[in-house]
């Protein structure tokens, strides 16, 4: 089963995105549900902040597939693809020392989701992320 929705490339859409994910997911424990919502938030926020809102196609498309053993999220947008497939390590002690605000989102996504892939198409790309829940 799948559900999908289109969102404008604006941070003001992120609360609506989170609500869409929450409503689309099956009954899960509170922590797992929050993790999947957070992963979607981080990827879409990154897309909005790194080009999606400056492109001619200023929206992005989210589809969620629910399966008894796994949840798959597909996020399609036309921003510059970011290196989500590459391993990212984060040292929060260094971030504190350097007074940095950013750079945590992709690390969170990689720690939450079990599989992440990027499909490059003509003028856009699809990030496909899967989490096993059984």
């Amino acid at each position, binding site marked *: 089963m799948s559900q999908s929705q289109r969102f404008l490339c604006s*941070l*003001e859409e*992120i*609360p609506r995105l*989170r609500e869409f994910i929450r409503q689309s997911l099956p009954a899960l424990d*509170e*922590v797992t*549900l*929050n*993790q999947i*919502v*957070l992963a979607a*938030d*981080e990827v879409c*926020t990154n897309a*909005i*902040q790194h080009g999606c809102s400056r492109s001619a196609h200023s929206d992005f498309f989210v589809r969620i597939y629910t399966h008894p053993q796994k949840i798959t999220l597909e996020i399609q947008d036309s921003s510059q693809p970011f290196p989500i497939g590459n391993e990212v390590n*984060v040292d*929060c*002690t260094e*971030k*504190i*020392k*350097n*007074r*940095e*605000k*950013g*750079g*945590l*989102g992709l*690390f*969170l996504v990689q*720690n*939450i989701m079990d599989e992440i892939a990027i499909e490059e198409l003509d003028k856009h790309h699809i990030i496909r992320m899967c989490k096993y829940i059984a």
Partner: protein
Amino acid sequence: MEIAQVVHTNFTTLQIQGELDALSAVGADEVFTRLIQQKQFNLHLDFSGLEYISSAGIGVILSHQDEVYQNKGKIVFSGLSPKVLNVFQLLGLHQLFKIVSSESEVECCFLES
């Protein structure tokens, strides 16, 4: 997201309610910046009303921690729900920050300073 501020003798409590994401992080950053400009370096973050936090919200807190520390202050957290605590654990922050479960523990943390 809403932030209420309560000033105590040794510290200031920020009661953060709602969802702290990339959109609301801007407002949270302004509150932190203002408090630090006012030289309030002992901060208690009451998360009992916080329903959601993303990396942008956490980034705001991390970016002010060093200045707090350099001024011999500290940041103490309380009221984390299991899902918010899990986000801290994913980032290893539960080992870097003081997280307590009761109001009396909060006061003790600042009596030590």
